[in-house]
């Protein structure tokens, strides 16, 4: 540029100089060589506060959710103002499996056990299937198959949970009950977990594909140079090497599964007394009873009863406490993935 102003010559050296490549860009020109209009200088100086405010809003939201759920949930345990209904002890809520709100029994263990059962079953299917599919996409599939599998996973993750629910209700439940249960209803953990597994598998697949793709090629080459087959390299070298990230993928899948509400609510049968029912049905094998007894989880009970309970009642307050429990679980899961990530970097 022949007619550039002289002052530009005083500007810091251009960052394409290789010695300066690693400097953060922001350390370069703090003060431009010519003066901008007053308005532009003001805008530049203060605009970052606006952006910061957006970021802080997210922080405030995290705290706000915690505060409001805790404030409402506490109503079940403390005689707060405007709380006329019965007050419960932590013990009779969290350590009791006795759920019968109409006679004042509020033990939420059946819901916690239900959530853990359905999530555990779903992970039992989705974690191995997802990790193996991840290996397949990263290390085995030809290019066109990679693209196809990515698109399949994109579609699976994009399908709304109510559509999964209606599929379970109209297709899977009748099919399972007709095929295997001689027409007795199939609602329960098995079908819920199967649908949940399909819903969370894309998360696990995409994260474990990334995990395998980020491994150094030398691992695989070294293993095969020592004479191992493809599968031996995968099983004995790649999967152990990727383990922290595979664990992260599984934990994030767990997080998605435990919070899912609508799809499960449509197929699980919504029966808070499932433990008693399971014990009572002695004509079937225990495993079948476990898989096909109508049950309930934390999320399904929320969806089911939130519209039916009066604001301020013990039952209603307790539902918010259950929501808080779910929220704390999510936070625990995120912190757990953080810790796993730190192990990986160490």
């Amino acid at each position, binding site marked *: 540029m022949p007619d550039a102003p002289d002052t530009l010559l005083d500007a810091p050296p251009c*960052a*394409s100089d290789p010695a300066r490549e690693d400097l953060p860009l922001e350390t370069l*020109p703090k003060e*431009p*060589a*010519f003066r901008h209009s007053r308005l532009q200088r003001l805008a*530049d100086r203060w605009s*970052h506060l606006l*952006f910061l405010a*957006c*970021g802080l809003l*997210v*922080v405030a*939201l*995290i705290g*706000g959710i915690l505060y*409001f*759920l805790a404030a*409402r949930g506490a109503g079940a345990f403390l005689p707060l103002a405007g709380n006329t209904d019965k007050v419960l002890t932590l013990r009779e809520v969290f350590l009791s499996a006795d759920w019968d709100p109409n006679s004042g029994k509020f033990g939420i263990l059946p819901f916690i056990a239900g959530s853990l059962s359905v999530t555990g079953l779903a992970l039992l299917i989705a974690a191995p299937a997802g990790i*193996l*599919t991840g290996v*397949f996409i990263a290390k*085995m599939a030809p290019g066109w198959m990679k693209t196809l599998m990515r*698109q*399949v*996973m*994109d579609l*699976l993750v*994009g*399908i*709304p*949970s*109510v*559509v999964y629910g*209606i*599929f379970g209700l*109209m*297709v899977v439940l009748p099919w399972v009950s007709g095929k295997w249960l001689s027409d007795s209803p199939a609602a329960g953990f098995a079908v819920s977990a199967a649908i949940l597994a*399909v819903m969370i*598998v894309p998360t696990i697949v995409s994260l474990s594909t990334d995990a395998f793709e980020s491994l150094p090629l030398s691992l695989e080459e070294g293993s095969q140079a020592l004479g*191992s*087959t493809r*599968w*031996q390299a995968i099983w004995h070298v790649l999967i152990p090497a990727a383990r922290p990230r595979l664990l992260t993928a599984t934990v994030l899948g767990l997080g998605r599964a*435990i*919070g*899912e509400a*609508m799809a499960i*609510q*449509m197929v699980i049968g919504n029966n808070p007394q499932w433990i008693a029912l399971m014990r009572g049905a002695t004509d079937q094998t225990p495993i079948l009873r476990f898989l096909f007894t109508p049950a309930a989880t934390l*999320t399904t009970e*929320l*969806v089911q009863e*939130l*519209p039916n309970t009066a604001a301020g009642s013990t039952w209603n307050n307790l539902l*918010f406490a259950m*929501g808080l429990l*779910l*929220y704390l679980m*999510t936070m625990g899961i995120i912190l757990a993935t953080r810790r796993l990530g730190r192990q990986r970097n160490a």
Partner: protein
Amino acid sequence: MPAAISYRPRRLSRVTDRVMRLALWGLALAFIAVLAAFVGAILKQGWPVLNLGFLTRMPETLDAGGGIKPEIFNSLYLVALSLAISLPIGLGAGIYMAEYAGQGRILRFLRLCIETLAATPSIVLALFGMIVFVQMMGWSFSIRSGAVTLALLNIPVITRVTEVSLLGVPRELKEASYGLGATRLQTILKVALPYAATGILTGLVLTAGRAFGESAILVFTAGTNTSQTFPDFRLTVPGETLSVHLWYVTSDGTLPDAREIAAGTAAVMIVVLLVLNLSVRLLDRFIRRRTR
């Protein structure tokens, strides 16, 4: 390449290798089959119901033969409103994280918060929206309660996609901008953001798809009823969306043709999502061609 392999794995290993290779192909094909069976079954169940009348009639509360006209409108309206709320906030937060936060503790903390919000179950967001907007603000079950709460679901996704897209802007572009004397704000608004726009747009379409399918949040904030006038742009009326309608008719059970209506609604939603997915793919291809 050596002419002959000096070591051959044991026979068992070779068989295992082949079996596992087949098994992994089988697993992958099984996922394709599940997806195909799923979409096929939904479309097959919904096809007989789908006609112009179904799409353009008002819903019934007790009799058979209701349509989903207002639900389609409410779905689009709520998605648009929630995006209008969450886009500026998500953009702002994303810009802050990519351009201002540096690499230190602040960035890590913001990331943690965004991740937590992204992982928060929608039923928990629904409870929050119900306490704050429906009850405390006194907005009751309405479009505005629904739109604001739905925005909470979008914000972390938009923030993340903005941050990632901005971090992908080539350093040389920003250097050139600074070199020409632009301020930091001018560089972000006039150089970095336009470059990142297509990436952000892709994320936005995906966010719209997610908001379109969301039900748990809207059941408890926008309600399960809809206005009797059409189109009703008021923010204070309840606004049942397609996904809520689908859930409500099946769980409520007062409609004689609930099953058909649910099947038809599900088919409409699947078609909309397939179209959205296709547009994301086209956008993506457009971006690749431009950057090549």
